[in-house]
């Protein structure tokens, strides 16, 4: 794991000189504190910040092929490198290191642009072909590792985090209003959009190729659900095959020349990963988890139970509201986007604990809920579609009472109103965002806080912000659950969980998170199975539970999914007053100068939160959204710019 940065084709103030590359890569030192490496050529400069995990002696980067005509830098891991290396050596390629990175250059020599299909891993890659004067940027299939780029005066600037681009950017950055609106709908930006105008992200499963013929972004992989299941295995066989795949994914992801730990949330997914490590490897295992003072969020009882059952050396970090509030600005500096939840902050505290314990790699259970349908939003979609078939039925909406049992103020607690709320757009079942509509509407209440200026910009841009994802041609032919899963993967998973709540908070303390459930072989296998294997009636993750049943205590398998959450609005107040930085950031003056929000509206919101009257998601998300946007503005945009004319022109263009 590491940080990468580079410049292609620049001259003058974007020339790929060493000093400029050093400025960029120094911004990414938290991602790779173990040393820098550089390549300087006439047309290109590459920079690498290293976190040593595989091949500690000779694994420095950039790495080249035998004659130095092809160079690469890698952020991430190629888990199948021993197998791939054997394959390439048999074809006559000579290796000079033991590093996983070296397989990339030889695979490119052998397979051309399809090299990326040979890689099993989580990666952001830059590859330079000196002979053909050709640069390839590639990002892993699921979007686990980040990669951003921008064009400036004909030069391509790219990096693992936006702050490295900002460091050499001539004009400084501006927030993109349509990007903000997307975050305040689906929790993250989608596709190539970021919240910064002119800065793009390479979407998951895509590559960017730049050569004499110009530049093009190409999709090389996507979630491909089946439309028919004639060839699908039986449920029992599917569970057996899934078990084998999971064991193999975990085995591969344990590959490292340093010890590997694991996060233990107390739920099925992380417990499953840890139990596989215990059963199938001899690695001693250290596990880590978060606990809270508030019973509504705390899962320590289940975590302790699992740690005892699995016999791991277990550490728990207790997170307080105070810590979350105080560390929030630091988190935003890492996340480089507004957020509507504070939940990533405890994970940043946890990665610090991991690092202080001497580890730099952890396995996590992320991804299982998306691939195997663990979230209540999938049940919500299923119940509403069932109800939509007979809209007059009163029994069908009664099933809604089964949803969200873990919430103190559940949206289904009053049946008359729940029926009304979930009945909105009931018959609009062909809408790709059908299952997500209620959640998006709740998040969008934050739009009420936008300034009149921003609102008028959004009225002209409305068509581009919802939901912002390119749907595959076959989408409409998939089962409803598959459609909901695809939308979930392209919005929340890619745009928030893997980034703000994944890579960024782990790398903040130089810790690499590995996600075995997102081994692409597992994602591809899941897509060949019918929806009923995943959501059986209203029982989530059915085939996954069957695959793990003999490894886990029955009560863990039977436990209803509890999504990971943390306290939100209360974190920003102490003794009945906002934290000093919040007070300053949300003052009428700061808000007016920045221009995004209506100062009067924010005052009402802050008072409601301060008085402890913000009990719903909408208000909590609004406060976190406003504070994070203002922090981002302060940290990345600067006081001299406001949400003004430049964005308006961009949005309309």
């Amino acid at each position, binding site marked *: 794991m590491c940080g990468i940065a580079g410049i292609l084709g620049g001259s003058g103030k974007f020339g790929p000189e060493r000093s400029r590359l050093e400025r960029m890569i120094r911004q990414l030192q938290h991602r790779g504190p173990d040393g820098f490496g550089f390549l300087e050529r006439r047309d290109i400069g590459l920079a690498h910040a290293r976190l040593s995990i595989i091949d500690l002696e000779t694994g420095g980067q950039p790495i080249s092929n035998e004659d130095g005509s092809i160079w690469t830098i890698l952020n991430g891991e190629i888990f199948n490198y021993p197998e791939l290396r054997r394959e390439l050596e048999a074809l006559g390629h000579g290796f000079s290191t033991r590093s996983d990175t070296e397989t990339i250059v030889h695979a490119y020599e052998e397979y051309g642009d399809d090299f990326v299909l040979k890689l099993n891993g989580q990666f952001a890659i830059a590859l330079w072909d000196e002979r053909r004067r050709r640069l390839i940027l590639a990002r892993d299939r699921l979007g686990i590792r980040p990669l951003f780029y921008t064009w400036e005066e004909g030069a391509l600037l790219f990096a693992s985090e936006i702050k490295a681009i900002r460091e050499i950017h001539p004009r400084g950055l501006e927030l993109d209003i349509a990007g903000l609106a997307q975050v305040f709908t689906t929790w993250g930006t989608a596709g190539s959009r970021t919240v910064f105008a002119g800065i793009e992200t390479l979407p998951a499963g895509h590559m960017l190729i730049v050569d004499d013929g110009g530049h093009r972004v190409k999709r090389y992989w996507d979630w491909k659900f089946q439309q028919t299941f004639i060839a699908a295995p039986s449920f029992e066989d599917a569970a057996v095959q899934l078990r084998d795949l999971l064991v193999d994914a975990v085995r591969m992801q344990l590959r490292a020349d340093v010890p590997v730990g694991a996060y233990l949330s107390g739920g099925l997914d992380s417990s499953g990963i840890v139990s596989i490590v215990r059963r199938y490897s001899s690695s001693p295992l250290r596990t880590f988890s978060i606990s809270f003072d508030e019973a509504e969020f705390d899962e320590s009882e289940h975590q302790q139970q699992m740690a005892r059952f699995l016999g791991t050396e277990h550490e728990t970090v207790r997170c307080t509201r105070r810590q979350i509030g105080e560390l929030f600005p630091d988190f935003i500096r890492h996340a480089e986007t507004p957020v509507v939840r504070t939940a990533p902050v405890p994970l940043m505290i946890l990665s610090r604990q991991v690092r202080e314990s001497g580890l730099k790699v952890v396995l996590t259970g992320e991804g299982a809920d998306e691939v195997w349908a663990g979230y209540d939003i999938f049940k919500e979609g299923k119940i509403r579609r069932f109800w939509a078939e007979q809209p007059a039925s009163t029994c069908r909406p009664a099933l809604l009472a089964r949803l969200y049992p873990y919430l103190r103020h559940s949206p289904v607690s009053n049946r*008359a109103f729940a029926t*009304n709320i979930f009945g909105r757009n009931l018959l609009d079942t062909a809408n790709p965002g059908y299952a997500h509509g209620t959640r998006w509407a709740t998040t969008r209440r934050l739009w009420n806080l936008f300034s009149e200026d921003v609102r008028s910009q959004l009225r002209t841009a409305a068509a581009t912000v919802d939901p912002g994802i390119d749907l595959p041609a076959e989408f409409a032919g998939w089962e409803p659950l598959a459609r909901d899963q695809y939308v979930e993967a392209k919005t929340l998973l890619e745009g928030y969980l893997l980034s703000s709540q994944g890579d960024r908070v782990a790398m903040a303390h130089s810790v690499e998170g590995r996600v075995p459930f997102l081994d692409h072989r597992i994602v591809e296998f899941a897509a060949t199975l019918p929806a009923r294997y995943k959501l059986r009636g209203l029982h989530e993750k059915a085939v996954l539970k069957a695959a793990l049943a003999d490894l886990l205590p029955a009560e863990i398998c039977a436990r209803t999914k509890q999504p990971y959450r943390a306290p939100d609005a209360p974190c920003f107040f102490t003794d009945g007053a906002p934290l000093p930085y919040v007070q300053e950031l949300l003052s009428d003056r700061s808000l007016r100068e920045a221009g995004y929000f209506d100062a009067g509206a924010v005052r009402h919101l802050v008072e409601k939160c301060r008085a402890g009257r913000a009990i719903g998601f909408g208000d909590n998300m609004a406060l976190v959204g406003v504070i994070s946007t203002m922090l981002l503005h302060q940290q990345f945009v600067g006081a001299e710019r406001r949400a003004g004319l430049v964005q308006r022109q961009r949005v309309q263009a």
Partner: protein
Amino acid sequence: MSIREEVKAFILQNFLFSSDTSALGDSDSLLEKGIVDSTGILELVTHIEEKYGIRVLDEEMLPSNLDSVAAIAAFVAGKRAA
């Protein structure tokens, strides 16, 4: 301030964070306009119970009583008269 005006001011300030009375019509559906969600209903009921000294029974927690400024004002007036 009439009950209707007071209820409207509460909804504007508490859910729309606004003092602009033109932002909400008296008969606008709070649910359909996305102004109030289910936790919002709890906030609303708590408010009118405290403010007007009434008890809202479970069977009265219905959209027909609570889904617009006009409906709420009529409901509260009816309860107080009862």
